[in-house]
């Protein structure tokens, strides 16, 4: 009987070994994925992260010890108390003392776990005295970071996935930071308490950067608080953690932690850029300038739904579209205010500045065979918004 069971076991194991041996040498295996066999959480680069990590390991080892005892008893019993060894079964079926013991002892162990858990949780919730406040807004499917400052202009920008569609659809080699790379990361200074005010524009998202020990849901209409203090410079990568629709897997959070003076310099540059955009608003552009800029904006903001050649996809086709080739007012309305019939078509009025909005409208009306010849200037967008 036992021999039979054993041969059944190895028979069942055979395909597993066969497949596992194949699996351990996949074709893309190279140095690109530097953390390939990571099996555990990392303490990361914050004190809270280190606390969470040691809490995690504490509970883990308690579970391991309990597991060894419980499974040890069970497997000993399976070995020793089997009918084939000719044992006669005992008849006992209760013992008040033992039952009280294994109710009380686990309870005491739990008390021991609750103490460090509570103190860590209190630290996580202490969002006071942050030096920098960043408003993080989740959009389908990108993040917007707005640096709230007492002096100077607020700096605000969107952070989009940089990984090319060709990489995702296997037409091109996957880069080192496949799916974890953005066009513009958040930048924060090292050794500084940064508070994140987290919210969302459309559906619920969740901001997660494991190494910064930050995870907070971004909820439309409400603002959550969380914070971090990175102790080491570097680029830390995370992802949206709450299912938010089609491209939930394609909206990474990338945080670049830099030295304080580097941060100050970066912030000053961003503030200058914001001022520059304000100046551009007053300019008039040529068709070429608008179309070139518009193509960049299109690739960033429209392509995911409307396709690289305006052929459509999740969204409607732009090429030959009745809207893009119809009256300018209707076209501006749907891009600025979104679609009233289809929530997937967002309102881009708050996402794109007026220069980019003018450029992308011009691009859509003159690309993909939509040769309308229209030229939309930033001032037109501004006037349209004012007139609403």
């Amino acid at each position, binding site marked *: 009987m036992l021999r039979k069971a054993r041969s059944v076991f190895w028979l069942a194991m055979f395909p597993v070994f066969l497949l596992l041996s194949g699996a351990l040498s996949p074709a893309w295996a190279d140095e690109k994925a530097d953390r390939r066999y990571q099996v555990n959480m990392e303490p990361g680069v914050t004190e809270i992260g280190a606390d969470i990590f040691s*809490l995690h390991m504490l509970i883990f080892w308690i579970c391991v010890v309990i597991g060894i005892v419980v499974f040890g008893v069970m497997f000993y*019993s399976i070995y020793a108390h089997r009918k084939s060894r000719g*044992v006669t079964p005992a008849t006992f*079926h209760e013992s008040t003392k033992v039952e009280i013991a294994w109710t009380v002892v686990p309870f005491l162990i739990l008390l021991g776990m609750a103490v460090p858990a509570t103190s860590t*949780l209190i630290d996580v919730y202490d969002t006071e005295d942050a030096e920098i406040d960043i408003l993080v807004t989740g959009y389908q499917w990108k993040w917007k970071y707005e640096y709230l400052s007492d002096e100077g202009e607020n700096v605000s920008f969107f952070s989009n996935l940089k990984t090319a569609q060709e990489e995702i659809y296997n037409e091109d080699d996957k880069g080192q930071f496949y799916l974890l790379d953005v066009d513009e990361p958040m930048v924060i200074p090292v050794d500084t308490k940064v508070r994140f005010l987290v919210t969302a524009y459309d*559906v619920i998202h969740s901001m997660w950067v*494991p190494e910064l020990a930050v995870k*907070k849901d971004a909820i439309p209409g409400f603002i959550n*608080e969380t914070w971090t203090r990175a102790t080491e410079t570097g680029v830390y990568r995370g992802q949206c953690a709450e299912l938010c629709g089609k491209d939930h897997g394609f909206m990474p959070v990338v945080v670049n932690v830099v030295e304080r003076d580097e941060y100050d310099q970066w912030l000053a540059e961003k503030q200058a850029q914001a001022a520059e955009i304000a100046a551009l608003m007053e300019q008039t552009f040529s068709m070429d300038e608008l179309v070139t800029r518009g193509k960049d904006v299109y690739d960033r903001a429209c392509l995911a739904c409307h396709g690289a050649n305006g052929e459509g996809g999740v969204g409607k086709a732009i090429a030959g579209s009745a809207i893009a080739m119809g009256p300018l007012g209707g076209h501006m309305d749907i891009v600025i205010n979104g679609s009233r019939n289809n929530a997937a078509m967002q309102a881009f009025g708050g996402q794109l500045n007026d220069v980019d909005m003018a450029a992308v409208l011009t691009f859509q009306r003159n690309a993909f065979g939509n040769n309308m010849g229209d030229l939309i200037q930033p001032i037109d967008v501004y006037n349209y918004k004012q007139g609403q």
Partner: protein
Amino acid sequence: MGDHHHGPAKGLSRWLFATNHKDIGTMYLWFSFAMFLVGGAFAMIIRAELFQPGMQLIRPEFFNQMTTMHGLIMVFGAIMPAFVGLANWMIPMMIGAPDMALPRMNNWSFWILPPAFLLLLATMFMEGGGPAFGWTFYAPLSTTYAPPSVTFFIFGVHILGLSSIMGSINIVATVMNLRAPGMTYMKMPLFVWTWFITAYLLIAVMPVLAGAVTMMLMDIHFGTSFFSAAGGGDPVLFQHVFWFFGHPEVYIIILPAFGVVSQIIPAFARKPLFGYDSMVYATASIAFLSFIVWAHHMYTVGMPIAGELFFMYATMLIAVPTGVKVFNWITTMWRGAMTFETPMLFCIGFVVLFTIGGFTGLMLSIAPSDFQYHDSYFVVAHFHYVMVAGAVFSMTAAVYYWLPKWCGKMYNETMGKTHFWISFIGFNVTFFPQHFVGLAGMPRRIPDYALQFADFNMISSIGAFIYGASQILFLYNVIATIVGGKPISDEKVWDGAEGLEWTVPTPAPFHTFSTPPQVR
């Protein structure tokens, strides 16, 4: 109609107008297995897409439909009806009742299930696709941003809720009124006890789910703003209502599994269940605690710290009664005289893997650590250890254990054991590596992932294909048994089995206990 009481009707009407608890139980079991295969096929599609990084087979929007439908079908279509089927077959036979208390309602609660699932599956062919917002359907992704088919989904959930509530009322009525003389509450088999408590949980929380989907319906079609901040509502309200249903729901799934294991382990240890009374009290405590822990699914939504602490402590407490159960099962084995037929193997597999799932559950209950685990693959691994290795393994054990009694034929033991080992290995190869990728930072419900997760995902997919294939073997074994298994006639199929169901002839006749037995 003179011979109505002597045997089943002929042809289709036997099933369509069935009022016999055994026939209805059989239909529930076959239906749930069919749904298990459908939900399993969706899981195979998910794992095939996740076999390698990059999008190969399907598009992200379809991937989301697959994860959503996989969850809905497995929870509401496979596991719950399977245990209801088992309850139909076994509860009357275990308490010495001639049938369920409300046979016509029993018929109705089964027959509204297939249309509900047809409706649910049909949404995938509608414009905009089927539900793609996860089986937890968080608003506003499931309201303002949902495909139009969400209305059909809501209707489907309403019907499922009706079915569950009627089934539960029936079980409560049966257990309270139809016990044989001498069968006091504290003599009832553990399976009956766990289902009795489960039925109350269902009656309590199914209306809450119905309320949640009705509020969605109102938000979508009638201009209300329960879940929209723009109109004064709150998206987090949805999560509170959903998980007030959802947490008891996971115990609804696991409590009958506890009952099954508590029947089978004593039979193969040839020794009475250790700590019967404490098993009953532990089940009741788990049921009570299930109502006050729901927000541990929501540690990251931004609750005040007092709420966070309350839910953390309450959740940790669940480890106590659950621990009692595991200790009792192991003490039942202790100094028994064990044999390891297929049902026992699945029960031992259950104890080991469910305990591992319990350990990760304890880890997840710790709120600060949960900030790192939440919505990662660590959670996926955790709940598959308790749902698959918990509910599905125990259900499989139950089928092997009682199938000979049902059809009077013995299944092929070697094939059964092979099924166990392939399942056990396939399951662990699938889900154990998911702990690793989760801790390393892979979020759940993503159709594509960063390169560092590639190896473990491929291993996981291979395991899933093995586990999936093993179910075909199970199906074959069951059909082969029914069609051409070795006939048996012993009333007691297993020499260590105890209980009224083993006192009736084998195979169990169409009507049993027309006159109630006397229980000493």
